[in-house]
């Protein structure tokens, strides 16, 4: 009987321990930490480890090569180009998406029936997969069977080749990505805008500020933290661009839209299955993304402090 009493009291102290907020927090975090550990941290360490080996996907003929794979990257023009294409895409996509999302959020911030309907409409593409969106855009922009080239042709304009033109292909992919994702940015910015105290706008109005001045001098400073979050997440997402390129141009024409992730994928998962080299390129990309995210985060924090 005594033994059972001891076990009951142990149980109680166990629950009491985990009921304390500072301990319970770990319980709430545990699922995310476990997922992060198994699907992010361990694969990251594994990728770094593989990058020091000459290894193929079948794990045959494995050889330790030290930093050779990293050295090879700097002599591989296609790999370097793929990094530049990724940066180019990011420069096109991230600012456009943040601007379009913020402007849409500002325009639809008042809760009217039309605005609520518009918000839902703008969010619909977010629900579609990138692959589906890619296929839709490929068909819409196809110079032979596409609706958009057809309409342009009807107005007597020449038919642009969009995804088939080396100059137009990447901007076309960026536009498609903005269309697909700006609903997320809009929703985040909308929440931030709606949280701004109306008294700030009233004061600005009393001081004679017009709508434009209110937007730049009241709205923007107030939403800087959300803006920073959107810039950073978009930046990371853009640097990892893959699906939409894979579906629309497959990296063409002439590798002009081949992104870093696509190059990593083609090196590692198609003949000659160079897993070691692909891991080295992935590690380099990881470092670039980390530097960009940290610097953008620092810049936005600095800006936030400046504006407050």
């Amino acid at each position: 009987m005594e033994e059972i009493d001891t076990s009951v009291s142990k149980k109680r102290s166990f629950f009491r321990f985990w009921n304390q907020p500072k301990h319970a927090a770990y319980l709430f975090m545990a699922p995310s930490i476990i997922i992060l550990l198994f699907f992010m941290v361990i694969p990251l360490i594994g990728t770094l480890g593989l990058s020091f080996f000459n290894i193929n996907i079948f794990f045959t003929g494995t050889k330790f090569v030290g930093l050779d794979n990293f050295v090879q990257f700097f002599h591989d023009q296609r790999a370097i180009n793929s990094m530049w294409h990724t940066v180019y895409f990011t420069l096109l996509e991230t600012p456009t998406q943040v601007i379009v999302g913020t402007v849409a959020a500002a325009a639809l911030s008042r809760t009217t029936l039309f605005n609520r309907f518009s918000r839902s409409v703008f969010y619909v593409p977010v629900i579609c997969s990138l692959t589906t969106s890619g296929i839709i855009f490929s068909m819409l922009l196809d110079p032979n069977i596409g609706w958009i080239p057809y309409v342009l042709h009807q107005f007597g304009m020449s038919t642009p080749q969009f995804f088939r033109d080396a100059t137009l292909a990447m901007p076309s992919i960026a536009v498609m990505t903005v269309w697909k994702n700006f609903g997320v940015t809009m929703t985040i910015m909308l929440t931030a805008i709606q949280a701004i105290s109306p008294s700030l706008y009233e004061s600005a109005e009393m001081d004679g500020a017009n709508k434009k001045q209110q937007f730049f001098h009241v709205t923007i400073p107030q939403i800087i933290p959300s803006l920073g979050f959107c810039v950073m997440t978009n930046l990371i997402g853009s640097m990892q661009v893959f699906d939409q390129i894979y579906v629309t141009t497959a990296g063409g024409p002439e590798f002009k839209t081949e992104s870093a992730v696509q190059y990593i994928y083609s090196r590692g998962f198609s003949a000659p299955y160079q897993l070691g080299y692909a891991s080295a390129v992935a590690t380099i990309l990881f470092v670039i993304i980390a530097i960009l995210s940290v610097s953008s985060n620092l810049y936005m924090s600095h800006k936030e402090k400046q504006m407050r």
Partner: protein
Amino acid sequence: MRHGLMKKLGVVAAIAAAGVSLAACGSSKSSSSSSSNKTTTITFWNGFTSTDGDVLKQIVKDYNKTNKDHVKVKMDIMTWDNFNQKLPTGITAKKAPDFVAMNYGDMASYVANGTMKDMGDFYKQNGVDKSNFETTARNLGVINGKTYFVPMQVQGMYLYWNKKLFKKAGLNPNNPPKTWDELATDAKKISKLGNNTQGFAMPKDGSAIMYNLLQDNGAKLLNGSEKKSALNSAATKKSFDYLQQLIYKDGVGPKNISGAEADNLMLAGSLGLYINGPWLNSGLKKNNIDYGISTLVQAKQGDKKAILDGVGFGIPTSTSDSKTKAIYSFVKYWNTTKIGKKWSLENKCAPYLKSVAANKDIKKDKLVSTMYKQIGYAKPYYPGNKNMSNITTNVINPSIEKVLAGNNTTSVMKSASKQVDSTLSGN
């Protein structure tokens, strides 16, 4: 309290009992595959996603119903892209299927990595007549003297032409071009019809057409020992110039188009001439396109050159011997005259079994018998070379794209040759 304890013990016992029964189920399953009286289930991956997949499903269903070897084939059909992504990781993770159907060009890199079984003993099985197989078809699966796959389908590139567009352009719909020059002349006439009509389409990923053109012009991709590139030649330049003149300069077809997009043009009836494999037949028939099919055009009349391609059955090394026996049972069934005939007629494929080719229904079928003519002289392109897949994807296809985009053909050729050398040297 004691009652509660007993209740807990009871739950533990029940769970243990369930565990034992489940374990028993598991062991009975494993014994089912080892015992000769029980059914052996074999998993089969392939990429026949089109209408050919429906025929394949029917054949597998019939086999599962009728075979007396107690074998059940469990098939997983996926796109070839998916297949080529899943198989290497499946092999590494020891989750590979028991057998696969794959292209002979892709097989070589698997063999080089020691992941495919030698299937030479298949031809020694009771009821298998080795001499009934066309030698070229059988040799598709031979690498370094060993048989790594048994044919399932052989194919080549054929010339398709749209008879309706031929008539509109004032050409004889029953007289397709015989040479590459005639093809260019006819394509130019068709492309002048306007209304988005294209004369000829050369896909940017059209390596199969490119290899045939190179071969016809006497150009070689690799030297005799296959250790160095042989691309840097006047014959290669001539081939590149021909395509550039046709597409980029004369504009008889779209400049930057994928194979899938070119297929769509042909299926929509807005393409006059096209070169593709037998799989285009079903779509053309379904879309009621008035078309013809003939053997591939040549550099000059009377030449008989073509590349033989094919898909075969292969077995990963992870498959057990007992399952290999079961797989042989299915492969044997596949290579019977009845199934060979069904596959050829329904999918419009050239037969590779002599008994199928001799069948009167096959001889009566115009499309199939035309394709069979080409199989007689077609030869595989660098069979067993593990670098071919890499060279095709990373050198030849990008070079085609550059040629079609109007880049200088000499520099494209030189650059491609260098890249081939680099690939062969393992850099």
